[in-house]
């Protein structure tokens, strides 16, 4: 992995974790589960993005990494579905 690739990963991880914190704050203020889902998703992704730092061919990733990413997205999808099924919120 080149230094530049490592740098980009660092930017992604830092921005994801910081965004997760913002969404956590929004959840605290609004009690809207959507923000909790976004917070969890970006937190998971932030940690997940560090995975390539430890594997042989980071540009290919690994199935585990992409499954974890999918989990993060599913959290968001589930929250959107839930928001549109509940009566008034």
């Amino acid at each position, binding site marked *: 992995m080149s230094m*530049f*690739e490592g740098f*980009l*990963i660092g*930017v*992604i991880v830092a*921005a*994801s974790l*910081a*965004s997760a914190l*913002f969404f956590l704050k*929004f959840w605290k203020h609004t009690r809207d589960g959507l923000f909790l889902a976004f917070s969890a998703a970006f937190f998971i992704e932030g940690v997940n993005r560090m995975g390539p730092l430890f594997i042989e061919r*980071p*540009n*290919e*990733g690994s*199935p585990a990494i*992409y*499954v974890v*990413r*999918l989990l993060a*997205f*599913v959290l*968001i*999808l589930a929250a*959107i579905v839930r928001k549109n099924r509940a009566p008034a919120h």
Partner: protein
Amino acid sequence: MGAATVYVLGTLTTLLCAVLLMRAYARVRQRLLLWSGICFVGLTLSNALVFVDLILLPTEVSLYVARLGTAAVSMSLLLFGLIWEGE
């Protein structure tokens, strides 16, 4: 096949978020919606590049920097929006 499904689903999810956010921005012109919308557009592009890179293109060609770059720019824009427009 399983991997391709994961990449496509990820792309569709971010695409859905992008569409909803941009649609809302067009309606109410709230700046946070613009920045987060752009972020998800970028993440959609990044996810699509993963699919293209790992499924469609030969192993000699690597879009890794492009994938990382689009994701890094997207997340930076989101963070900017959250800080600048969040309160």
